[in-house]
């Protein structure tokens, strides 16, 4: 499967809660079929995970899921998705992650049986391949344990499987800090994309076998890392914006190898994925500031099908435990969306546009999430045939959009940001069209201590 045209070509159809290829879970919950549902994610507060502390780990997860389900019932949520992102230790010992999955499953089932609340459970094993240094992407015990974690969690009751995979990241962090565009393109358009193809073939196969949904991936290890660094003024915002768009082709690979959505919440490249594939996406914004601050808190609400908090640890706030607080916030956010869309597509479009308007002029990272910009750039991306060419084209398109917006006064970039916009544009021009030529040119600059190129078929 290779996408070559947009599943959502028209801006007026590019809305929250609806998509051309909605997903129906076993219990009938439809994602992308009209309503936006909350997707809540929670994690442990400060504690060590060991065999001895497992009873407390289970108790914590029991407490969190119970608080969340009770509140969702109380607030008459029309549906609820729970994401369980495994911590590294819960993937390193796949049985532990599976046990937590069981706990979550049973509370969700009870809630559904008792109160009729339709729920879904997404389980996201951790990409533990990085524990080997340099990472071993296709062999060794970490790879085996990771895939076993997928299987065991699927058997333990996951409805959907996901991952936030990190292929190529071992050299991308430095590329971010160096402001090195070609290296970023190499990490995403070559390494990451090849790893995604390998990985998602397998995740899809496991999912089919276990009767669960292969949902999606996230390039957050690339672009959200950049966003967090830009937020702290470590790197230019235009650079973070460009990296965001550079991730699209890489994340699309999952869908070309079996993923069917909903794409992961933290993948802000999601709108591009939705426009291109037509599959539903999760996204997160203002309510996810519990997990990371961001300049895209409202614009992220433009086109999601699930609305998430990213993650919150189980601490006591004045009102309630933080996961309970978080689910309440998500429920109110989605209520507004669903009321507007119940009035009609025109009203939903108005609300979408207000959200877009509220962020898009203030930060280039928001600007590249404008639904019109997403459609425009997506079209350019899929005009190219391969991940490398698509990634290269993303750089051109993103930079062009930002230059135009800046010139038109739609964005008010500082002198420093302007300098970087130029610098990145020059760097992009140097990207050869031919992938082999590109690879040959960049390999000498790659730090071989950090990466095992053979793990990417290079």
């Amino acid at each position, binding site marked *: 499967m290779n996408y070559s045209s947009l599943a959502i070509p028209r801006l007026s159809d590019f809305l929250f809660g609806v998509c051309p290829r909605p997903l129906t879970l076993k219990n009938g919950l439809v994602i992308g079929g009209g309503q936006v549902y909350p997707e809540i994610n929670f994690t442990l507060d400060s504690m060590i995970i060991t065999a001895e502390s497992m009873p407390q780990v289970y108790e914590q997860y029991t407490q969190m899921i119970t608080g969340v389900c009770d509140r969702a019932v109380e607030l008459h949520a029309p549906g609820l998705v729970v994401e369980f992102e495994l911590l590294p230790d819960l993937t390193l010992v796949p049985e532990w992650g599976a046990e937590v999955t069981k706990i979550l499953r049973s509370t969700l089932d009870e809630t559904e049986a008792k109160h009729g609340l339709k729920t879904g459970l997404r389980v996201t094993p951790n990409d533990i391949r990085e524990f080997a240094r340099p990472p071993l992407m296709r062999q060794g015990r970490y790879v085996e344990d990771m895939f076993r974690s997928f299987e065991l969690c699927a058997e333990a009751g996951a409805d959907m499987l996901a991952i936030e995979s990190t292929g190529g990241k071992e050299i991308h962090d430095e590329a971010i*800090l160096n402001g090195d565009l070609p290296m970023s393109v190499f990490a995403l358009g070559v390494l990451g994309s090849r790893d995604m193809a390998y990985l998602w073939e397998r995740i899809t196969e496991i999912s089919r076998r276990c009767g669960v949904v292969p949902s999606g991936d996230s390039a957050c290890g690339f672009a959200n890392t950049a966003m967090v660094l830009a937020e702290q*003024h470590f*790197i230019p915002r235009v650079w973070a914006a460009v990296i965001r768009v550079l991730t699209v082709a890489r994340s699309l690979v999952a869908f070309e190898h079996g993923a069917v959505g909903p794409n992961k919440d933290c993948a802000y490249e999601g709108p591009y994925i939705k426009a291109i594939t037509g599959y539903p996406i999760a996204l997160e914004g203002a309510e996810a500031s519990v997990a990371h601050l961001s300049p895209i808190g409202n614009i992220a609400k433009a086109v999601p099908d699930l609305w998430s908090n990213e993650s919150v640890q189980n601490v006591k706030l004045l009102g309630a435990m933080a996961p309970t607080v978080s689910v309440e916030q998500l429920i109110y956010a989605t209520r507004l969306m669903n009321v507007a869309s119940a009035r009609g597509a025109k009203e939903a479009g108005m609300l979408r546009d207000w959200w877009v308007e509220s962020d898009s002029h203030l930060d280039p990272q928001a600007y590249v999430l404008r639904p019109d910009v997403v459609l425009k750039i997506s079209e350019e991306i899929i005009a190219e045939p391969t991940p490398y060419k698509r990634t290269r084209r993303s750089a051109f398109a993103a930079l062009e959009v930002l230059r135009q917006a800046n010139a038109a006064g739609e964005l008010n970039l*500082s002198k420093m940001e302007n300098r970087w916009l130029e610098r990145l544009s020059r760097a992009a021009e140097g990207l050869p069209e031919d992938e082999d030529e590109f690879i040959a040119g960049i390999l000498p600059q790659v730090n071989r201590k950090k990466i095992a190129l053979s793990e990417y078929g290079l």
Partner: protein
Amino acid sequence: MIIDDIKQAVIEGDATEVKKLVALALEQQVPAEEILKNGMISGMGEVGRLFEEGEYFVPEMLIAARAMQGGLGILRPVLVEQDVKSAGKVVLGTVKGDLHDIGKNLVGMMLEGAGFQIVDLGTDVSPEKFIEAIREHQPDIVGMSALLTTTMPNMDKTIKAFNEAGVRQSVKVMVGGAPVTKKYAGEIGADGFAPDANQATAEAKKLLVG
């Protein structure tokens, strides 16, 4: 003056120029310590200031840091000869179970800019590896980073292991990372904490005075 030129070349991140000027200065019998302090470290100090004021980003800092490294390569043998002390030696690492390293790397970079010597143990560093490094490198400070709520407690474990191994008294311990707070640092008996890389440098200096 040549010292000012070295400083300027560091600020501009011109490694070739820095190397050339440092060699020249040594020829001119400028004391190595002066080249280091008033030339290079002072240049990185200015880079730090530009960064804090939003005039520089990390990429620009990294270029400056590399220019400084170039000069240091030439200067180091002489420094050793003249027995000039570095600002201090710091062993850095992300604790066991944790692979996040960007924050730690930035802390290391800033410390280096301020004249500290850095030994970076990388990520997923067990208490044993930290202890080994203390024994081997005899640092003034051990800096630990943790980004996960479930690995932060390994800071506590590591400090306890230092006590057991009898190396706790020989170093100051500094901790940081997103979930870490000053309060937590106090609870586990760390000597220092900083919420970001800039303040990490100030904290490190304070630890070595106090």
